[in-house]
């Protein structure tokens, strides 16, 4: 039986405020709360709430036959809790139906997988803890921020306990193969790879209301017919997209919500079902996929160039991750929170010359200047905690001494006591 595997990415970064260089060292607040709230509010009112309501209805009306996945980034969860807790409730209600799966990902929607293994691990754990806390379900499938993936990365992910990994169905790794199967990893037998059918996925956010598109208008009827027309052996259709496709990219008046409402009925009519990522992966892989170089779900190239494609981005990322270890030694809460929020991939993308869509800055240079000023202040704070003049190893030793202080003192006291006893005994 053919199945559609939906997952929707819910992500909106904090909006960084205009941070001038003369504030470095004086002001440690980096966010434009008003703009962040505005952005979130718009997403919530125009997209998340109406779409969640429709999905809840679909699940109810189909007796749980409609299923889908969500991946919600850490910063987005925080902002939703703060500005629109009703959305958290509505996701929780979806979670309770048992038909919705939440995916694991690095908490900060970051490129940590590319830079620091320890940081990556901490973030994945933090995210999964947050999902358990909010929705009561432990994620079992993993998708990296921007679907960044390589063979080597799979080892880290598998070690963290996730053997279902969602990746982009990029042509350069699939070759002639179809994305509509479950694949395996070249040397990790347990790992299952699900590949995004990007052609089908992109029809929804980018072409739905495009009158110049040859297939316009896109209807649920047509969409499911394409799936039905695919070769019978191709059973899994991974349709993954940003949740804001519903209501923000494609506005309400384009009929995008009607499209979503009509999908299940049209699918069932053609004998097509729905599934979630973890369920879909419970099958024997048809083949393995090799991906020696990291890929992502972005653009035509499907590489990492939108985030690490120019000198500006490299400089920012190298500076940022140069303090990863130190920050993780720190205990200061505010510092650790800022550390997570400023890692968001979007801030790097704003520095790109070709992919800076949605940027809150005038130009990549403007984005870079602002980010570097923030980072400079952040680095100063890290430095104040642990001066850079001390090597990491040395610092570790010192910290160990301090942390073990109590233990060592009590041990010494024991010895003194024993010695004294011995003395009095004599």
């Amino acid at each position: 039986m053919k199945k559609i595997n939906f997952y929707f990415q819910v992500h909106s970064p904090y909006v960084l405020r205009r941070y001038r260089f003369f504030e470095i060292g004086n002001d440690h607040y980096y966010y434009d709360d008003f703009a962040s709230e505005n952005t979130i509010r718009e997403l919530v009112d125009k997209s998340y709430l109406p779409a969640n309501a429709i999905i809840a209805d679909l699940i109810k009306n189909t007796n749980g036959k409609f299923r889908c996945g969500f991946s919600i980034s850490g910063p987005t969860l925080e902002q939703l809790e703060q500005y629109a807790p009703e959305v958290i409730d509505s996701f929780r209600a979806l979670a309770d139906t048992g038909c919705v799966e939440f995916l694991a990902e690095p908490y900060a929607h970051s490129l940590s997988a590319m830079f620091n293994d320890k940081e990556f691990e901490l973030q994945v754990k933090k995210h999964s803890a947050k999902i358990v806390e909010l929705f009561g379900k432990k994620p079992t499938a993993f998708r990296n921020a921007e679907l960044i993936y390589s063979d080597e990365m799979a080892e880290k992910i598998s070690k963290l306990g996730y053997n279902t990994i969602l990746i982009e169905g990029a042509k350069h790794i699939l070759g002639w193969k179809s994305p509509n199967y479950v694949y395996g990893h070249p040397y990790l037998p347990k790992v299952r790879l699900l590949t995004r059918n990007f052609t089908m996925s992109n029809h929804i956010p980018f072409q739905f209301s495009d009158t110049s598109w040859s297939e316009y208008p896109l209807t649920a009827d047509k969409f499911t017919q394409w799936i039905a027309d695919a070769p019978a052996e191709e059973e899994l259709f991974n349709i993954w997209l940003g949740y804001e496709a519903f209501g923000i990219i494609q506005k309400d008046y384009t009929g995008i919500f009607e499209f979503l409402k009509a999908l299940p009925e049209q699918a069932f009519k053609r004998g097509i079902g729905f599934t979630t990522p973890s369920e879909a992966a419970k099958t024997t892989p048809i083949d393995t996929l090799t991906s020696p170089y990291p890929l992502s779900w972005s653009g035509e190239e499907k590489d990492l160039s939108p985030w690490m494609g120019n000198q500006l981005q490299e400089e920012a990322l190298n500076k940022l991750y140069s303090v990863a270890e130190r920050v993780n030694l720190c205990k200061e809460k505010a510092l650790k929170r800022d550390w997570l929020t400023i890692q968001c991939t979007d801030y790097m993308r704003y520095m790109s010359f070709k992919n800076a869509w949605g940027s809150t800055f005038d130009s990549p240079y403007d984005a870079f200047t602002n980010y570097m000023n923030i980072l400079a202040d952040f680095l100063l704070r890290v430095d104040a905690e642990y001066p850079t003049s001390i090597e990491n190893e040395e610092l570790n030793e010192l910290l160990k001494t301090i942390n073990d202080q109590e233990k060592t003192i009590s041990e010494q006291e024991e010895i003194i006591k024993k010695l004294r006893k011995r003395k009095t005994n004599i």
Partner: protein
Amino acid sequence: MKALMFGWEFPPHILGGLGTASYGLTRGMAAQDDLEITFVIPKPYGDEDQSFAKIIGACAVPVVWKETSRERVQECIGHIMNPDEFFYYRDHIRYDFRRIWTNDLGCIEFSGRYPDNLVQEIGNYEAVASVLAHSLDFDVIHSHDWLTYPAGIFAKQISGKPLVIHVHATDFDRSRGNVNPTVYSIERRGMDIADHIICVSNLTRKTVIEKYGQDPSKVSTVHNAVDPIPNAESYKKTPRKEKLVTFLGRITMQKGPEYFVEAASRVLARTKNVRFVMAGNGDMMNAMIDLAASRGIADRFHFPGFLKGAQVHQMLADSDVYIMPSVSEPFGISPLEAMQVGTPSIISKQSGCAEILNNAIKTDYWDIDAMADAIYSIVEYPAIYQTLSEEGRKEVNAITWDKAGLKVREIYDRVKR
């Protein structure tokens, strides 16, 4: 297609940006094989590059018929015009211009500069235009800037050929709104009579439409370009410990020098590793020296005076940042020149060149904070310096005059009846 152009300056004897721009455009247009350009200027020196356009000196065109010998003509104007040509023009004098003072050849003497009797000189240029309009064969008339509009208009009235005027600047840019009524009326009349108006930026186009009441459909923008600097690679940055931030231009109200001083004082409050240079002179120079002193940054703020030719390029190449905080700049060629030698530029959003540059930092001229931030960023973070330098050079080398020339040609084809 034959074009008759009226200009005021022509390299190598130039006084401002007008000469460079009309020269560049003419040369760019010469790349089109079927286009013949005749360029009229008040006073050529004989060393102008004539390889791509025929240059006629207005000071060698007779406007009053006077008896003279071939030898005398050869002696007086032989270095700029063939005597045969002179006599040909003399045969085409149709109007009586004896009210104008002329020399023994019947020619008017022009200064070719911007003298006090500029308006009179503009009128005399008109007389020359009438003789040329009667003697030459052309399909379109092209006038560069307001000084030559009356000449263009007269030529149009005589020949009935379409007139295209090229607005390099308006009096609103020069005076920040307090326009000179005489200049305004000359500009306005030129625009009213022209068949098409070419502006060097959308900013200027907007001024022309709004302040001169022109029909938007007859106003187009053709952005300026920049000629490659000969041996751009030879200008090397002198290694030095401190960073250099440079302003280069007339120190006048239009160029916004006070914003540069204020931005400098903000940067210096944070880092001492920078020096600021304000090269050029102008009526606000002393006020700027005072301002720098009152901000307590005079030890790091320098006024080297007016720079010329290769000195300019060397100064630009030595700089780490070039800044142009102009309050109103029709185009502004200097940031492009800075980028040619690999120096990152900060420009105001109120300058025309901001419309075509991507790899330069753009701020509002009054936004001192943004300007200071940009300066700080370039001097502190090597990545942004590198990127602006490399990408900027690439970008600017792709902005060539022949592309601008093609756009002008399209306009010619449209107005030609």
